[in-house]
């Protein structure tokens, strides 16, 4: 047995392009997921019991089914109801909605961690609902929400690899394609694994760094 990594590494620019797509989808997808998750959690917190119950259904469905099944349903099933998306859009949409379900739970736990008395106090001094969320609730729950949020973003980074199965030209797709062309599939997967490993460890390190910085702001 002999490994030839040179033929893989020779395709550096292509690999980097795939890495770029992975990072782009990850960053944009995570940002959208956080935003949507926050909206859902806020609606569930302040929208009354009916909204809370109705929104619980998609959240539980998204959390209870595999991401792979979700993107297959969206990408292969979508056209049958007139939702014809290109792979990147489908992947981005799928990742955002899937991530949003988890982020909404993170924010929900955050909202629950703030004592109701603080919200009442804010209302008593005349803050509007929006001001209460922005100036009271968000800062109070930030420290609690940060670690699971960072953790979730790393999970989403790894889940972008699944998008290769709906032909999104991200890193897994790109590198394994190179491997097939060059008859060096094992080598390509080894390279792929190492790049992901490095990327995830880097993201973890950045996360820990951020947590350390932020936790210094803690007042309690």
């Amino acid at each position, binding site marked *: *047995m002999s490994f030839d990594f040179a033929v893989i590494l020779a395709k550096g620019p292509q690999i980097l392009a795939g890495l770029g797509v992975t990072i782009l989808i990850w960053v944009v997808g995570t940002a959208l997921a956080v935003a949507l998750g926050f909206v859902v959690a806020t609606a569930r917190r302040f929208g009354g019991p009916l909204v809370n119950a109705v929104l619980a259904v998609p959240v*539980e*469905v998204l959390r*209870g*089914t*595999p*991401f*792979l*099944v*979700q993107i*297959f*349903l969206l990408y*292969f*099933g979508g056209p*049958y*109801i007139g939702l014809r998306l290109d792979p990147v859009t489908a992947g981005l949409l799928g990742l955002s909605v899937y991530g949003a379900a988890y982020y909404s739970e993170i924010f929900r736990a955050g909202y629950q961690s703030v004592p109701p008395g603080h919200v009442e106090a804010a209302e008593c001094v005349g803050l509007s609902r929006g001001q209460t969320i922005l100036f009271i609730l968000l800062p109070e729950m930030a420290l609690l929400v940060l670690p699971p949020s960072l953790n979730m973003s790393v999970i989403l980074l*790894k*889940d*972008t*690899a*699944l998008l*290769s*199965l709906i032909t999104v030209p991200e890193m*897994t797709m790109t590198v*394994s394609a190179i491997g097939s062309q060059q008859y060096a*599939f*094992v080598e390509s*997967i*080894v390279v*792929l*694994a190492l790049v*992901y*490993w490095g990327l*995830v*460890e880097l993201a*973890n390190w950045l996360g820990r760094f951020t947590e350390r910085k932020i936790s210094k702001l803690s007042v309690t």
Partner: protein
Amino acid sequence: MTWSLFQLLLQASLMTIFVSAISICAGLAIAVVLSALRMSGNRLAYAGAGLFISFFRGVPLLVQLLLIFNLLPVIGITLPSLATAIIGLSLCTAAYQAENLRGGFEGVPIGLIESAEMAGFSRMQAFVYIRTPIALRLTFPALVNEAILILKSSSLVSVVGLVELTKMAQNLSASTYQPLPIFASAGLIYLVINLIVALAARRAEAALPGLPAK
């Protein structure tokens, strides 16, 4: 979408449950060994276990499965896809479970170890009979989470050629051109399995004997 198609999905879901259950148990066993290595006081064992955990938590499961599936034959090991799937899932979940267990082992009050010491237990005996069972009980909720995660992640083993629920759904959707109802049904089956696991776990947890105080 007909009843017979749904039945095929149900049959395939048995494979999903089987692969997940075996992997969770094997992963737990490996995780306990990894924890023992990390707490052994041996630097090499500590570093090795740490590297294992970092790798399997750092690489997407899809890539791990592709790696195992393609690497093993090259080094002369040919395994059926079922075995490959179980190995892949077990190693991956072992890394996550070891990370969960770390918290559990740290949560075992020192006094319980001291009382084992005074009762004459050796370090190894205390690890096996006292620390591990208590750590497992402390991390039971995390274990259930991990089980549900693995049930969902098992959808990826289709890439090593095993026909489980997701792969069956893919096959059926390709042959019947009905991806929408078929993938929706598959999703529903996953949802129901996970619900059952979660409910069963809640009942089991209520029945488990007490956790250490504090």
